[in-house]
């Protein structure tokens, strides 16, 4: 929020100055932007173009060996839209994303509020813990979790049994899709909380103390203070964090892939996995690309909604 406010005067000042300069220097900003634009074009736009092109081709092992696909128009899209498994996967991915984003945001906010209330040493301890979680590479983290919930030798089953939660010896967390996705959700939320918490905590420290005190004098309880004061002030941060979380959780891959030994059963397919399996396990690169394009499109819709929301909020202020 602080950023948004200070940027406005800066932009208008710059504009004013620009009108007083020579026309040639008007090109300078574009020249400065050019390298970044070229890099983005090369590593993002061009591959995306190739992906879209591939999605209109029949491209299997035969074509791969010859490095040449066959143009088949929208056949790949027709195939996936008529495939009931595809729609199951889309629905599963949407629900999965909703659950993960909600849990991440709620728990992340709760911990951020907790940190704000803590004394110095505990705050340091908690923040260090969060940063360490954030710093752990995903592949390493998922493998550690995988060992913990291992069927044969896992420490989770051992601990739960020792604590008399029941007989967890040889408990298979992935035999049941619900508990399997439960474990995966735990790993994802665990890994996502630090970023949300630390960002929100930074935002919280910017909330003017006077506003909170004024509200408290008016008789507001903690929940009211949060709802009426903190939440509106931090709305832009919440929107950015939520939209980022949606993007991250919608395209989840590693957590599912590694957790299930790189051979997830179809019950565990989310869109990223489905596109990968179709492309690289069944050698249907064209079909896989079509799934990926649909996935990008769905994500773009979600993102556009939130970016619009973001800009709107900015304008209102």
């Amino acid at each position: 929020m602080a950023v948004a406010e200070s940027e406005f005067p800066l932009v208008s000042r710059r504009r004013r100055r620009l009108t007083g300069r020579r026309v040639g220097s008007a090109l300078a900003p574009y020249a400065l932007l050019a390298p970044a634009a070229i890099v983005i074009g090369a590593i993002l736009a061009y591959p995306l173009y190739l992906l879209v092109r591939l999605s209109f081709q029949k491209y299997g092992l035969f074509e791969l060996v010859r490095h040449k696909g066959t143009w088949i128009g929208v056949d790949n899209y027709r195939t996936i839209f008529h495939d009931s498994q595809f729609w199951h996967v889309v629905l599963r991915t949407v629900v999965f994303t909703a659950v993960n984003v909600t849990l991440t945001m709620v728990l992340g906010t709760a911990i951020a509020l907790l940190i704000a209330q803590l004394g110095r040493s505990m705050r340091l301890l908690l923040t260090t813990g969060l940063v360490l979680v954030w710093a752990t590479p995903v592949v390493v983290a998922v493998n550690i979790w995988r060992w913990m919930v291992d069927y044969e030798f896992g420490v989770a089953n051992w601990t739960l049994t020792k604590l008399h939660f029941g007989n967890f010896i040889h408990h298979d967390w992935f035999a049941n899709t619900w508990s399997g996705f439960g474990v995966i959700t735990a790993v994802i939320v665990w890994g996502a909380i630090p970023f949300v918490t630390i960002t929100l905590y930074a935002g919280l420290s910017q909330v003017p103390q006077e506003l909170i005190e004024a509200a408290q004098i008016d008789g507001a309880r903690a929940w009211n203070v949060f709802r009426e004061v903190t939440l509106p002030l931090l709305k832009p941060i919440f929107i950015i964090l939520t939209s980022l979380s949606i993007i991250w959780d919608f395209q989840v891959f590693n957590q599912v892939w590694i957790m299930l030994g790189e051979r997830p059963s179809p019950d565990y397919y989310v869109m990223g996995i489905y596109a990968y399996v179709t492309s690289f396990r069944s050698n249907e690169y064209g079909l896989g690309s079509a799934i990926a394009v649909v996935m990008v499109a769905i994500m773009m819709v979600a993102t556009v909604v939130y970016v619009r929301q973001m800009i709107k909020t900015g304008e209102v202020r």
Partner: protein
Amino acid sequence: MKARFMVAAILAVMLSAAASTASARVQTAKADSITVWLMGDAQSGWPNVVAEANAAFKAKHPGVDVKVQYQTWGDHLTKFDATIAGGDTPDVLEFGNTETTKYMANGALKQLKAANFPNSKTWLAGLKGSCTFNSKLFCVPYYAGARAVIYRKDQYKSAGIKGTPKSQAAFLTAGKKLMKKFGKSDPNYSAFYFAGKNWYASLAYVYDYGGKIAVRKNGKWVGTLEKPAAIKGLTVAKSTVGALSRASRTTDEAHPQQALVFAKGHVASFIGNGWEWPYALNKDSGNPALADKVGAYPMPSHVKGKLMPEFLGGSDLAIPAQSKNPTLAADWIKAFTSTSAETGLAKVGNIPNTTKLAGVNKDNPQLAPFAVAASSSWFVPTAPNWVNVENADVLQNMLVQIYTGSKSVTAAAKSADKQIEKILNG
């Protein structure tokens, strides 16, 4: 994440354009190394055979280095496909004998001349078949493996089991005795350790009752897992696994390695390859103390006195069509499939690629049971797209549904049949 496969897909296409121009140039340069992709089995089971082949190759080609890169069964084909796209394929590649057809049919492998390779007149017919497409040869048989029951003689004895079971009924009775004797006090104990995704051992029950995975009818593949014989086999497998195994229903026999679970002592028996026996006794990963307590016998059929057909596994060595050093690659394969190399392979429990060496393990009590087991075997449908059924884990997913009870045997088999037909006829 999403970026990973997208970038991979795109990179593959991009690289392919660059590669077609680059490869012409590299070909003329003198190679100073060749790249060989072998499966990890060679690394854990017979590293000395690899070392000897490398030494023999280097003696012939001084200055040419052999880079052996060990792969895992789960993703070696995905990696190979990526190298095809990138124009950077290995020079020699190990294939499972069920994986070759698709690559031969799509022109991904170099055609070879049998006469150039050692013992080609006496190659195992089954393996040679997996290397032949439209009566042309595209790979060289490497070794075969049959599975047998590897068991704890001491536990069998103290549970009062005399001799080894000669029928499935006797096998089940013996297993129940073991569970009673050891399984009550030890919650980790399995009389017959059987991972849920072990499709090689599971489908053996189907073939034992005369079932099949799929058959070709009027030019089309038809899934036959829902036929009564196959259903019977799967049902028996389910009840056997349910009664005797406490292994995970959702992992396969290599995660964790079943031989190493066996080595920990809570397992009386499992279906394993010949090389898994010495692997269980390996001093670094296994338990050498079990050396004189382990035995093996061929899995009996439900028909008394007969053997259950076990999957005839095996591996072949091929040269990718895009290899830049096909001549050197062929020379390395020659060294690695020489009579002495194959003798080395036989001694660690494999079935060598030539019938000439069939008698090598005749008097070895540790390995003879596997040779006997090989006399009764089954193999996957020989459809060009078969490997896609494996890649999509159709059978493994069906087995998980059956063993965890998330679907009935019939429902799981029907849905697998549908997927198999879609893939094989696609």
